[in-house]
C-alpha cells in the first residue's frame, strides 16, 4: 500500500494538494488532469525524488520499495548499448554482475528486443527506445512502476502495442503501476482506477474505479465509452 496523507507540495506557491489517498498493492492507477495540475509532481513525490512540503507518504511496512521510473522521453544514455542501459540500475545498486547481466537479458527479451542488446539508442526507433526504458525500469524487479506520460510521443500503432505489453507486464509481475497520462481513453483502457486532478494547485477531484468486465475488446463496450465520457465531462467542466 502507498499512502498519501494531507500531502502538499509548494515551491514559491502551492503546486499540489492537499492530497490524501491510498493506492492498493498490485493495482494499476492512472492519473489524468490538465497541464500544470501536478501529475508529474505526484509521481516524483511517490518515488521520493522530491520531498513534500507537508503531510506524510507511507509505504508498505514503512519501507520504501524498489521502484522503476519511465519518463516521457526514454532518457536512455546514448553512449551505452541497450544491454548497458538496462544494466544501469543494477550497476548503481552494486548488484552481482553475472546475475545482473542475466536479469537484463531476460528483460530485454521480455520487452521484445532480443537481438538488439548491442545496439545503441540512436539505432533504435522511438517505440524500441521506450521498450528499453521499460526494461530498465523493471530490471530491479521492484514492486512499484511509475510512468510519466511514456507513450505520448509515439505513433498510434506503436502506442497500442506498448499499452498491451505494459498490461501484460503488470499482470504477470504483481506490481503496482502509477501511470500519468493526458489521454482519457488510455487511462480507462489501461487502469483499474483513474484519479482526475484539478488545475494547479492540483487536488483529486474524481477517483473512479473502472468497471471492466472483459479485457479483450473492452474498448468497444458501452462501459468503456460511458466511463470515457464521464471523465471527459469532468475535465471539460474544469475548463480543459
Amino acid at each position, binding site marked *: 500500500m502507498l499512502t498519501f496523507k494531507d500531502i502538499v507540495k509548494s515551491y514559491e506557491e502551492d503546486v499540489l494538494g492537499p492530497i490524501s489517498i491510498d493506492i492498493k498493492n498490485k493495482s494499476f492507477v492512472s492519473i489524468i488532469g490538465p497541464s500544470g495540475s501536478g501529475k508529474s509532481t505526484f509521481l516524483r513525490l511517490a518515488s521520493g525524488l522530491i520531498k513534500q512540503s507537508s503531510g506524510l507518504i507511507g509505504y508498505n511496512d514503512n519501507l520504501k520499495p524498489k521502484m522503476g521510473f519511465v519518463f516521457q522521453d526514454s532518457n536512455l544514455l*546514448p553512449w551505452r548499448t541497450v544491454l548497458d542501459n538496462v544494466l*544501469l540500475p543494477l550497476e*548503481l545498486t552494486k548488484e552481482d554482475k553475472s546475475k545482473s547481466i542475466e536479469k537484463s537479458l531476460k528483460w530485454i527479451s521480455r520487452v521484445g528486443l532480443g537481438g538488439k542488446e548491442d545496439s545503441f539508442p540512436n539505432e533504435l526507433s522511438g517505440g524500441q527506445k521506450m521498450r528499453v526504458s521499460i526494461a530498465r525500469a523493471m530490471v530491479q524487479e521492484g514492486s512499484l512502476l511509475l510512468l510519466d506520460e511514456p507513450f505520448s510521443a509515439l505513433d498510434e500503432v506503436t502506442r497500442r502495442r506498448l499499452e498491451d505489453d505494459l498490461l501484460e507486464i503488470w499482470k504477470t509481475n504483481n506490481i503496482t503501476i502509477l501511470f500519468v497520462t493526458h489521454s482519457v481513453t488510455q487511462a480507462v483502457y489501461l487502469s483499474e482506477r483513474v484519479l482526475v486532478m484539478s488545475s494547479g494547485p492540483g487536488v483529486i477531484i474524481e477517483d473512479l474505479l473502472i468497471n471492466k468486465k472483459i479485457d479483450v475488446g473492452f474498448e468497444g463496450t458501452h462501459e468503456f465509452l460511458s466511463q470515457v465520457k464521464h471523465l471527459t465531462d469532468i475535465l471539460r467542466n474544469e475548463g480543459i
Partner: protein
Amino acid sequence: MYRYLSFIAPLLTFLVLLIFWEFLVNYNKVPLYILPAPSDIFLSLIVNYKDLFSSAFITLRITLFAFSIASSLAILLAILFSQSRLIELSLYPIAVIFQVTPVVAIAPLILIWVGFDNAEYAILILATIVAFFPVLANTNLGIKSVNENLHELFSLYGAGRYQRLVKLQIPFALPFILTGMKTSIGLSLIGTVVAEFVAGSGTSTGLAWRIIEAGNRLDIAKLFAALILLVILGIFLFLLISYIEKIVLKRWHDSSNI
C-alpha cells in the same frame, strides 16, 4: 557524388589559384623578395627541407605538449567545478582573466620569470594558457548540460557523487570536451607560434623563428615555405582531433557522422 565533390572542388580551386598566381608573378616579373611564385616556394621547401622540417617538428612537439597539459588541466578543473560551486565561483573568473589577456602582453613576463635560457618552457607555458580555456568552458558546459531527468534517474537508484560523475556527467560531456579540444588544438599552435615570435630569434628554433629569420634576410620564398608548413601542421592537428572524435563517439553520437 557530393562526397567526392567536397574533396575535389576545393582542390581544383586551389590548383587554379596556384596556376593563376604563378602566371601573374611571371607575367609581371614580380621580384622574388616581394612575392615569389609557387614554384619558387616549392623549390625553397626542397632546398631548406632539413631546417624547416626540424623546426616544424619543434613547433609540433611544443604544440602537442601544450595541448595535452591544457586539456588535462582544463578537464580536471571542470570536474572540480562540478563538485563544488564555491570552487567554480572562486576560480572561473581567474580562468576568464587568463583567457581575455592577450598572450603577447604576458609573454615578456613569463620569459623573464622562466628565464631566457629556458625560452622553450616559456613558449610551452604561453601556448598552454592560450589552449586552456576552450576545453575548460566546453567541459564545464557539457557537465552542466546533463538532462534533469537523467539526474533524477540516478537519484532514484541512489547513485553517489562518484557514480554520477563517472557514469553520467563525464560521458555526457564527452562530445563537448572534444569540441573544445578541436578549438584548443588550433589555439595551441597559434599560441606556440606567437610565443616563439615574442621569444625572438636565437632563443628558439621553431617555425616562427624560421619565419623571422627568413623575413630578416628577405628570403620570402623560405618565409612562405615555413608558412605553408604551419598551415599543413594546423590542418593535420585539426584532422587528428576530428579523427579521435570520430573514433570515440563512433556509433552513439550524431556528430561523428558529419
